[in-house]
């Protein structure tokens, strides 16, 4: 059921200009028209209520979500896309410095950058994978904290319902979009009953 609903939302959202070859998915997504209330309502709200065990609390470094009061979905979604792109090493910023429309997309393509804190990833896939996941978590936390979002811990099984980890390559775009939209739904949704944890 969830997939069907999301498919409808995605079909609606891709009614915006099709992704040109020279645009990154993030840049295109940020530029696309805001979602309508109907489209937003069709995005399933993930389950966030749980009774935390000691193990859950130990794992809050890995499993968490963001929320900011007085923030609508489209604002939260743009923020999440921006942070996701920065965390992925994508070129999202162009703006007035772009020599001509599509310049950055055409120069950089949609590939991310290999490197960063992944540490010898080519030689050590396991270590590299773990480091990449860790770097992504750190980057999302930092970026969203600068944007004023609070962080809340979540149980692993609930987290997995609307998040992804990219230790060994990029998730397929539809799954990424689905997850990021749900994260934006949570970030702009009702204020969590749980207490926020350190940013």
């Amino acid at each position, binding site marked *: 059921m969830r997939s069907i609903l999301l498919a409808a939302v995605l079909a609606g959202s891709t009614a915006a200009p099709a992704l040109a070859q020279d645009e990154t998915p993030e840049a295109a997504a940020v530029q696309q028209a805001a979602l309508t209330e109907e489209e937003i309502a069709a995005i399933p709200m993930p389950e966030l209520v749980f009774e935390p065990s000691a193990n859950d609390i130990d794992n809050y470094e890995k499993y968490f979500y963001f929320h900011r009061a007085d923030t609508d979905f489209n604002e939260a979604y743009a923020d999440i896309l921006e942070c996701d792109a920065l965390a992925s*090493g994508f070129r999202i910023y162009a703006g007035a410095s772009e020599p001509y429309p599509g310049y950055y997309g055409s120069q950089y393509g949609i590939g991310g*950058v290999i490197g960063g804190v992944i540490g010898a990833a080519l030689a050590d896939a396991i270590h590299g994978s773990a480091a990449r996941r860790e770097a992504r978590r750190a980057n999302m936390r930092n970026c969203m904290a600068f944007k004023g979002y609070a962080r809340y811990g979540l149980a692993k099984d609930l987290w997995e319902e609307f998040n992804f980890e990219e230790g060994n390559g990029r998730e397929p775009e539809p799954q990424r979009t689905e997850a990021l939209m749900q994260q934006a739904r949570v970030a702009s949704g009702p204020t969590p009953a749980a207490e926020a944890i350190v940013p």
Partner: protein
Amino acid sequence: MIRLLALALAAITIITTPATAQIRERDIERGRTTIEADRGYIYLETDGRFFGIFLRVPEPEDYVAYEQAREDQFAELQEQYARDYAAFERAYANARERRWRLPTAPEEPTMADVSVTPPELQDAASFGPGSDFAHDDDTDRRAYLTVVRPGTYVWYGPVMYDTNQGFVGACNCMGTVMFDVVPGVVTDLGDFLTAAPRYADRGGAQMEEFGNFSVVGLLGSRTVSLPTQSREPSFGLPESLAAWAGEPVEFRAAGKMNNFYGTLVDRLPPIDGVLEYRRDQVIDARTGEVLETLTLPQNSTPSEAEL
């Protein structure tokens, strides 16, 4: 597997390692190095080892040169393709005649096959953590003197290329400062970059990852800890540079940048009179103006005619 690795390597060739041209004090004292009128010089001091990258803001002619380099490289690829295709045709005819397995035609190149370092990274300059200009063994105070192409530079952040790990560190992708480097003069940054930021107002995630970086060197791994103590910045060139023209730096706020090197994402903490934030908006503290979210700030845009 080999192909996958080759593709991965091809993907990173576009991100070249920043140039490192460090001058050491002893080279000046021994007369091996003198100031050059057409070069720029960035002098800075830190308490303890430090490292980082400055990105030069491209000028319109840099984009023109970049486009030309891309077209030149594409023309070369096309010429190579023409040679490869002619060889393929001969091999194909030969194989058909002898009823051998037919060879596969070469793939025609596209612009996607062209790999030229983008203008924003062409004049990237790195310094540290080794090759310091001078250091005080008692206090561990260190100085770095970097030779650069004159222009406007953005403090990209404590990022370095480690041969064992790739790019390590955290970029100031969400806000930083920039400054001008004029030719034939040493631009004196003093210890501003590490002393002036208000670390107590950093915000962001509270994680050790943003304060310590492991650097693998010839003598093993060591950790470089980033400064966390704010204090009044100090300026002034050392006695050894007395004969060189020096100029104090003027910093101004710079907007967001892409995570070019795929490192951790951070921002320079606010700095009195220079850099402030409103959530993630970057504010020029001198004017109160919100800076655009740009790949590189205040970048001049060439007209279509120029391109």
